Structures are given as structure tokens and as C-alpha cells.
């Protein structure tokens, strides 16, 4: 899995005068599942489509298996793609949908039949061969789209939000389907989503993008625990990471009215950073709430309590900002004064100006 399969070298994409992808460097290893994640409009689809050859590359190099592909037409790249709306041929039966591309590309008849049969059984589509896409449910259509791509037996598999049209229950099972396929064929997956749950559970690595720029490229664990900047910290995790402005004075973090002794382990990192103004990030699940004041605790007022089922979200006002903490107890009332602490090892510190992390201590 160490061989590079797809590589983008300083790739940019312009639409007219607007740059929607700038200077993207990305390499995907053979057999890897890479996730492109990011908010709507950040350029995920555009990146994927450049790899597929459906959009031209404005500048930079796109390499596949070591060959420059910028000018190779889509049809010659031997890439499979699953579209968000599945892009099934509505006028062909399921069988035909799968077989069509193969037949046109002169795969011989028995081979086509064999492959169709195989993917139909892998994806549990037996019995639906003669139906038309319109007669299938969303989940079935999605499976047909997968089947069609698999039958092509290409080593690169691009997926553009393939599950976003499914409802919550179906998404979970479709996710498992995808993993099963990958286990069987070990293609290189490049998978676009804006659902972080999907990204975390499916990806070997996640490329988090924003406004056409790569924010972070790392494993799900790192993305979650080692966010490179404020954006990453806020984007990943629900409820979102609390971000508060602090500044360091001596060995104390100062909030507006509160202050806190800075953990010793942070001091070298802080010193290395130069500036003393920071953005502090704390995940809701890393905070401990209490009704009793303890030394080193900060205090706020409960604004609202949200029921999540097994746990509870407590939204409270801390100084001028609103924070959220997750608690196992349901015993919080609106307006009540609460005290919270957090493990400084699990917190994040970002430089106020660059919004980049200054490092981690745990």
C-alpha cells in the first residue's frame, strides 16, 4: 500500500477568473481509501472530476501510476466513478446498465456475462436484472451504480457523495457494502463526502478542504485529535469544538474575567510561537461539568440542555461566548450556575492570527 497511485502536483483549477482549486498537492497510495471532505463548494467534486478527466486541469500535473494524465481523455484513464445521482442509464435494464460499457469496449460476451453475474450477486441484486432503474428504491439504485463501476474492474474508484441521497438507516448499510467491496477488490478509492461520520469510518486518510485549499491530510484519528488549525478542529466532531480567545500572561491563560494556570507542558510550545494571543479549542466531550466550584474550574450559566439519548448536551454561557459540553448526566437546569474543568492535555491551542495549531502535548 505504499506505492503511489494518483498524484496531484500543484494542481489548480480556474473557472474563468475564479480559482476554485489552488495549488493542490495530494497523493493517493495504491489500494488506499482517501476521503475528500469539506463544506459545500470547497472544491471536492472539482478535484475528483479533474482526476476522472471530466474537467481539465488548469495548471499543475496530474499523475496516475507515474504517467502524466492531464491530456488523456476520460475514457482512456480506466477509472470508475460513482456519481451522487448514480447516473444510471434510465432506459436500460439493470443488466444492460452494467454490461453496456463493457460491451462497447469489446469485452467478449461470456466475460461480460460472467462479470455481470458476479457483481449482481456480490451486491445482492439478483432477481432485479430485468428491471429498470425507475423501478428500484434509492438504495438499490445506489448498489447498481456500484455494481456497474465494479464490473469495469478498474483499479481506481472515484465516488462523489454516493450515499448522500440515502436515508440514515440505508447509509449505514451502504457504507458496509462499500467496505466489503474494497476488501474484495482493493481498488484505490477517492471518496467525496461532506459527512464527517462517513469520512471517519471509511477513510484510511482524510483530505479536508476549504475554499479550494487543502487544510489537512491525515488519518481520521489525527484529523480528530491533532487538528492542524481552527477550521479543522471546528469542522470535525459534533457538537463542534468550542473556541475561545485567550491570552497568556506569565504562566496564566487569561479569559475575559477568568484566568487559569497554564499547564507546564504547554509552555515550551507557547514560547516557540512568539505571540501570546491564542485561540483555545476544547471539545465538548473533553469537558467535565459540575454543580460545585472546584479549584481551577471556570463557571458559566446553563442556557439550554439537549437530549442526545445516551448523553446530554449542555449549552451554557461562558463570559461573552456560548459553549457546549457533553455530559452523561441529565441533571441540568436552564439558568443554573455550573462549573467546568478540562484536561489541558486534550485541549488545542491555535495562534490567534494564523489560526494554526502551535502543537500538541498529550
Amino acid at each position, binding site marked *: 500500500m505504499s506505492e503511489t497511485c494518483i498524484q496531484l502536483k500543484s494542481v489548480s483549477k480556474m473557472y474563468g477568473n475564479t480559482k476554485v482549486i489552488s495549488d493542490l498537492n495530494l497523493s493517493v497510495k495504491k489500494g488506499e481509501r482517501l476521503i475528500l471532505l469539506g463544506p459545500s463548494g470547497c472544491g471536492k467534486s472539482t478535484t475528483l472530476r479533474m482526476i476522472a478527466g*471530466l474537467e481539465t486541469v488548469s495548471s499543475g500535473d496530474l499523475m496516475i501510476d507515474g504517467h502524466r494524465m492531464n491530456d488523456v481523455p476520460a*475514457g482512456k484513464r480506466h477509472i470508475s*466513478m460513482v456519481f451522487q445521482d*448514480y*447516473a444510471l442509464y*434510465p432506459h436500460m435494464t439493470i443488466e444492460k446498465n452494467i454490461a*453496456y460499457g463493457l460491451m462497447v*469496449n469489446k469485452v467478449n460476451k461470456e466475460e461480460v456475462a460472467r462479470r455481470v453475474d458476479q457483481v449482481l450477486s456480490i451486491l445482492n441484486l439478483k432477481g432485479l436484472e430485468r428491471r429498470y432503474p425507475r423501478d428500484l428504491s434509492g438504495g438499490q439504485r445506489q448498489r447498481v451504480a456500484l455494481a456497474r463501476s465494479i464490473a469495469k474492474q478498474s483499479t481506481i474508484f472515484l465516488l462523489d457523495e454516493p450515499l448522500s441521497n440515502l436515508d440514515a438507516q440505508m447509509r449505514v448499510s451502504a457504507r458496509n457494502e462499500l467496505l466489503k467491496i474494497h476488501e474484495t477488490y482493493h481498488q484505490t478509492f477517492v471518496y467525496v463526502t461532506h459527512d464527517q461520520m462517513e469520512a471517519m469510518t471509511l477513510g484510511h486518510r482524510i483530505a479536508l478542504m476549504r475554499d479550494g485549499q487543502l487544510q489537512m491530510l491525515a488519518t481520521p484519528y489525527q484529523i480528530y485529535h491533532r487538528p492542524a488549525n481552527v477550521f479543522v478542529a471546528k469542522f470535525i466532531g459534533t457538537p463542534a469544538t468550542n473556541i475561545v480567545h485567550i491570552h497568556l500572561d506569565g504562566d496564566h491563560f487569561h479569559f475575559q474575567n477568568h484566568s487559569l494556570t497554564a499547564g507546564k507542558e504547554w509552555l515550551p510550545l507557547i514560547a516557540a510561537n512568539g505571540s501570546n494571543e491564542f485561540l483555545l479549542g476544547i471539545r465538548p466531550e473533553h469537558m467535565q461539568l459540575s454543580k460545585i466550584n472546584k479549584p481551577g474550574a471556570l463557571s458559566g450559566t446553563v442556557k439550554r440542555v439537549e437530549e442526545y439519548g445516551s448523553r446530554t448536551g449542555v449549552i451554557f454561557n461562558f463570559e461573552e461566548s456560548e459553549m457546549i459540553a457533553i455530559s452523561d448526566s441529565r441533571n441540568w437546569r436552564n439558568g443554573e450556575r455550573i462549573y467546568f474543568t478540562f484536561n489541558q492535555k486534550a485541549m488545542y491551542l491555535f495562534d490567534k492570527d494564523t489560526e494554526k495549531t502551535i502543537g500538541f502535548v498529550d
Partner: protein
Amino acid sequence: MSVISKKWISYLFILPSLVIFAVFLIWPGIYTVYLSFLDWNLISPTKRFVGLQNYLSLFQDPTLYKILMNTFVYIVILLVINCFMPYLLAFVLEFVIVRGKKLYKKILFLPSIISLVVGSMLYVWILNPVSGPIAIIFKKIGIDLPTWSSTSGLVLVVLSLITSWKVFGYNFIVLLAGVSNIPSGVIEAAKLDNIPLHRIFFQIVLPMSSATGIYVLIMTIVQGLQYIFTPINVVTQGGPNYASSNMIYHAYQQAFVLYKTGQSAALSTLTLLLFTILLFLEFRFVERKVYYAGK
């Protein structure tokens, strides 16, 4: 849920159209069938009932077969120029050229707002095989244009071309809309599968926009045959020797040039019958296979 709360209001809204259709379309239709059993010259006070005589003489007249054939040839030519060509160009514009769609649309639609009488006359001059501008240009490179207006066969083609000049643009924008409605993903999927363009056109675009295609097909046949009336009347009056006449023009000629009302009515009835069969065939065999977007 109906927006119109009371049913009688719906009927009231439909009434004006219904009355006009009844008086000027349905009753005349029936009356034409009635006239086809009579011998009458439009003014004489006596109408003579002749039974099927009009139909018999219609079928005995070799001209009928010639005109049927012409009608068929017109349909074929019109389909090629006004249905297939715009289809192909719409496809090309949407998926190959991509740019300049708006401009082409604007210009190509332009002739469809111009009177066909004007168009016919213009083309008679432009295409004058001896002294028109085209002939002169061709002459310079040593080609003599055939005298199309007096050459059977060719005259059908040229009259169809003149009609197409007017009809093409409308069909083009309709088909372009139909083709643009195809989800781009499907075409991209095909491109990724290395499907050549001509296959994309015939095997994907054509079937997927067939609802629009059928509409244009039917309109081309039904409207086209009526549109072509004007160039026939302006340019050849059906000649030479009925080589450019069609069922519509011939019915007109019988009625208002030769005053053979019965013959004309019989021919019209026959035309109506043919159109009905066409419509029926469309519903029976094509409609079922048509793919409707969004269903």
C-alpha cells in the same frame, strides 16, 4: 388538492375553448366527411349525393398515388432536415462544443418568426437555377445548377428546404432543451466508460430525450406538411405535373381552384384518417418505450 374550489368554475373556464373548437373544428370536420359523399361545386344550389363515388374516383386517379408518394417523401426529407439534423446539432452543441449555445439558439430561431410567404419568395430568387446568386457563384466555379423547380424529385427537396428554413430553428431549440435536460452525470459516466460519441448520441441521448424527440417528430410530420403548403403555392402550384403537390395542397387545389368540393373533402377525410393512424401508431408503439425524465 384542486385550486378551483367549485367544479362548475372549471367547466366555465373550458367553455369558450370548447365552443370555438366545436364550431370551427369539430363541426367542420364532420361536415367535410359529409361533403365527401356529395358532388358539388361550392356555389351551385344543388348538392348531389353520389355515395362513395368521390372516393372511387380518388382511388382511380393515378395522381393520388403520386401525391401520396410525394407526401411520404416530404415527410422523410422533413424528418431528416428538421428532426434528425437539429437533434444531432443539439447534441453536438450540448456535449461537444458546449460554448456559444445561446448565440446559436438566438440566430437559428430567427427565421421561424418570419412569414413563410416571404421566405418562399426570397428563396425562389436566391435559388433561381440560372440567374440567382447561388447559381452565379456556382457558375463561376463551373457548376450548372439543375432547374429544380421543374425537375420532379428535386423540387420536393428544395421546397422542403425552404420549409425547413422556417421550421428548423423551433425544432432546434426544443430539442436542445430536451437534450440539455439529460443529467450530465449520465453522459459523463458514458465518457468515463470510453463510449464513443456516436454511440452516446444514438444509444444514450436519443433514448433519454425521446419524449421531446417524439414531440418534435410528430410536429414535424403534422405541421411540416401544412407549412409546406405555402412554398408549393408560391413557387410551383403543385407542378410540374403534381411533382411537388402533397395531400394538403391537392385538397386545396381541388376545392378552391377546380371547385371539386367532393373530391377535396374525400381527400381531406383520407388525410385525417392517415394522421389519426399515425397518432395511434405513435401511442401504441412508441409512447410505451419513451423515457420520460423525472418518472
